[in-house]
């Protein structure tokens, strides 16, 4: 049913993706540049705090801490964006639900697509930097599009699950936003999960899909590792993805007809 809705509204999906992009970057003089400046400032601040201020060790010797941080942070920004915006997507675009006939399931998708474009842009810049000034280009980069696509699917499934619930309850939306802030600190974006010596703590941390993706990106860009090299990790993630998709389908099916009455 969801796939059919997407096929039927694919034209509108493109229009709305463009709209969502345009909306995020208007009303300011620098406009589009902000999509680039904001992450750059963040990157600089975290790098400064970690390596000039705290002087922590985040990477094995042959990898520059800046490249390492850059790749993880870019992955994180995409995930955080989808967690936040995805969760409030239906509320943001409520006129599509209450004023016209439009399939609700398409809303999280175009919000996710617009973020994916920004993410692709940022990642390309990062790869350009790493390729020229950093660790160089590797074959393992080829798996990045796959990572991006799976990441997009995973967090769009999340949005499809969370956005209807956020309509039902404002508390839920606030809870998600508060959790995102915590997730940033516990997901190993700023510190290296592999440096943890207690095995079970490490195992628990690797259950976190955000850690999975951030580490996956680093493996692909910097460590020259392929995603199938850790099959256990892959299986755990696969299970979680399946569970999330199921939850998303159930919530969407249950709430779809009621959403317009509530907004």
């Amino acid at each position: 049913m969801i796939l059919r809705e997407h096929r039927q509204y694919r034209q509108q999906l493109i229009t709305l993706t463009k709209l969502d992009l345009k909306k995020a970057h208007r009303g300011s003089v620098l406009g589009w540049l902000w999509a680039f400046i904001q992450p750059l400032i963040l990157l600089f601040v975290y790098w400064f705090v970690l390596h000039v201020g705290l002087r922590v060790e985040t990477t094995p010797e042959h990898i520059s801490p800046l490249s390492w941080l850059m790749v993880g942070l870019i992955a994180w920004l995409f995930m955080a964006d989808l967690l936040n915006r995805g969760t409030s997507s239906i509320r943001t675009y409520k006129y599509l639900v209450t004023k016209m006939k439009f399939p609700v399931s398409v809303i999280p998708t175009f919000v996710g697509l617009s973020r994916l474009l920004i993410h692709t842009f940022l990642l390309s810049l990062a790869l350009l930097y790493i390729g020229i000034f950093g660790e160089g280009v590797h074959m393992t980069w080829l798996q990045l599009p796959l990572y991006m696509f799976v990441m997009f699917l995973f967090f769009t499934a999340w949005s499809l699950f969370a956005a209807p619930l956020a309509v039902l309850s404002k508390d839920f939306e606030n809870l998600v936003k508060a959790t995102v802030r915590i997730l940033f600190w516990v997901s190993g974006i700023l510190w290296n999960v592999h440096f943890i010596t207690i095995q079970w703590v490490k195992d628990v941390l690797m259950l976190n899909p955000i850690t999975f993706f951030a580490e996956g990106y680093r493996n692909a860009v910097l460590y020259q590792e392929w995603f199938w090299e850790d099959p256990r990790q892959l299986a755990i993630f696969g299970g979680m993805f399946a569970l999330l998709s199921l939850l998303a389908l159930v919530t969407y099916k249950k709430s779809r007809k009621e959403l317009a009455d509530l907004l």
Partner: protein
Amino acid sequence: MMNQPIAIEFKNVTKTYNLYQSDAKRMLSMVFHFIKPRKKLANDDLSFIVNQGEAVAVLGRNGAGKSTLLKLITGVAFPTDGEIIVNGRVSALLELTAGFEPECTGRENIYLKASLMGLTKKQAILLEQTIINFAELDEYIDQPVRTYSSGMKARLGFAINVNIKPDILVIDEALSVGDIKFQEKCRLKINEIKEKHHVTVLLVTHSLDSARKFCERGIVLDEGKLVYSGPIKKAITRYKAIA
């Protein structure tokens, strides 16, 4: 009348709203089924047919279920029970607004709306100037819609909705906006698309005057039930009796 194609058919349609005391209770009720909502019956077992090209006024007091009925026709809301058949593209002005993107300009909203209604870019370009002229927005058309007054929004909404060639036009109270001249223009436009393109019109209004001018038929609702369906004159008499 007999062999005219059907535009809208309602078969025993019921719509109930589930009202909870708070959002928290609504959330909890998804898991705990013993938390029961208060049920509000907005449309109670409605059955009627609207033929293609007909103009029908929906009359009723506040809370009679008129807006719910329009939402069901538009496909925004879903019936709790019964079946609804709608043939053709519905263009709707619900609760006065057409659903604009507040951050975008009027012009961008024309394109957005056209695209969402399934028009191609080419068709939209052809309609753009007609819509702007009709809405009488002049230089405001390139300002963001959030800066518009409610009258301006309603005018733009109306202009878009009548001009994008709908099969069924649904208007909720929107005719009461604008000055007399604008209202007259709307009336002419609606008559024109009715005559020329055989558009079906559904009109919710409290102004019996415009109901009489626009519509040949009336549907009277009272507390969610259909109490009368027939010629507009009789419908108005009936409505006056319960109002």
